[in-house]
């Protein structure tokens, strides 16, 4: 996101337009991230909507000096998703019985590979799966991931590297 958008978010008079731009650019990624944590379509949609609503209502409180607007938005989404996990108390059943997702078939080889990746992701530790989501779906940098998780940048980089390595090993 450009510096212009960051400044626009910080200004109340143009914040609505800036928020709309942020929504257009992040909606799919945010939904994918929420689904990765919750592994439930309905819950992911609820969290996505809730995260955007909270972000909209708090848009005047965005502080560009504390990180990018994507980092800020995914931080809100993370809290909403974790609150949803706490509230529903159905985490165990979701892990055991995740929602089936039919992968778009682009060929037998791709289908097998993606099914392997899907299984590997489902078997991963939730924290690693979240890191994968933040890296692969949200496209956040290590610095932004550190900001979302409240850890140091080096720690975030190490964790992301370990998670990707685990995924690779699980898929090999």
């Amino acid at each position, binding site marked *: 996101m450009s510096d212009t958008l960051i400044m626009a978010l910080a200004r109340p008079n143009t914040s609505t337009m800036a928020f709309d731009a942020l929504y257009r650019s992040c909606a799919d990624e945010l939904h994918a991230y929420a689904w*990765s*944590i919750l592994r439930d379509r309905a819950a992911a949609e609820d969290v996505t909507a809730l995260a955007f609503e909270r972000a*909209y209502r708090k848009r005047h409180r965005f502080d560009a000096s504390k990180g990018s607007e994507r980092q800020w938005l995914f931080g809100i989404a993370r809290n909403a998703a974790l609150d949803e996990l706490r509230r529903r108390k159905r985490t165990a059943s979701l892990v055991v019985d995740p929602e089936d997702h039919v992968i778009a078939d682009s060929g037998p080889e791709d289908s097998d*590979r993606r099914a392997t*990746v899907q299984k590997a992701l489902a078997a991963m530790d939730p924290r690693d799966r979240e890191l994968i989501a933040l890296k692969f779906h949200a496209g956040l940098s290590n610095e932004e991931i550190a900001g979302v998780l409240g850890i140091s940048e080096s720690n975030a980089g190490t964790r992301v590297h370990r998670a990707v390595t685990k995924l*690779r090993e699980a*898929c090999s």
Partner: protein
Amino acid sequence: MPDFNDSELLDAVLLADVRASVPPMRPEFRAELDSRVARGFKPEGGLGAWVTATAARLVPPRRMLLPTMGAATTLIVALVVVVGAVHDSRDSDGTVSSLVSTHSAPGSIDTDTAAGGDASTQNLEQADPLQSAGRTASVPASPEASGVAGAAAPSVTFDDGTRQKSAASKPGFGRKVERHTELTLSTSAKKLQDTADGVVRVTQGVGGIVENSNVDSSDAGGSATFTLTIPSNRLDDAVEQLSKLAHVSSMSQGATDITRSFVSAADKLSDARAERKALLKALGVATTPERIETLKARLRVNRSEIAGYNGQLKSLRRRADNTTVNVTLNSDGTAPVESDGGWTFGGAADDALSVLQVVASIVLISAAILVPVGLLLVLALLATRATTRRRREQALDRG
């Protein structure tokens, strides 16, 4: 299976596969979300729906209600304490509070030391001058002090916890207590004469006597002293009325037990009368002039003794029945300013100072209460945030 050894291909393939592992957003949801974003997340359905949604958003979740209500209760209690403290501080400026706080000397009951006995002294704390004035009169003398053997007398408990058997003096002799009161009044120079007149008026009203008075009045101030004799049974009434005339700077009350002196004089009078009867009887049967003359001489002495004892008894009875009240009236500027309706710079300055003092008191008391409460709230907020964060992380771990 794909070849994951080629890192560049691996990243691109893995990225694509990971992204493909997540179901895309449903078009219906996307459309609905677009619509909500376009409306600025205002609910459909007009004002009623907006009010409902806003209320639902503003009402805190149940887990937040308890600490919120606790904090609100704490604040209410703090406000009540502040208001109460301010109210008390205003009351302390009132006449009644001043009356109590300016007592300079406690009252006392002194048993009759003049009688030569081993008199004891009981000091009484005076919380309320009027009440204690009445109480003083009702305190009976101890049998040791009175020197009269008592039988099965009820006891009286003094404020200091000591108990004494009430006097069971000889039949016909009640308690004889001499009381004295010192009262210092302060008033403005303008009202000195009026107050002095009021002292005389009150004294006459209760059937008392102004033994002597001295009023020294001038524009700058003045003073007056009165020595009053007030019937003891009207003393409470008199003190109450005198206290209303002006600001009471100080008051002390005391009582001296003169029962022993009274009983002693009565005994001596009785003996003298008995002796007189015996002398008269002996005179009636005396035959010799010498004997008659001797008896007459003794009768003369006896008569003077009886007169003396009678005088003593009358004096003691008068001391018991009347109370000496010394009233001092000052107008030396220490008296509280009494408004006469006019505006003065000094009065305004005093008022301003009083207002500032009250405001400062309120601020100080409020700070004393609100600062700790605020710190507690901040700590509670930090603890709540830390707990929420920890629980969120725990929820992720369980996921």
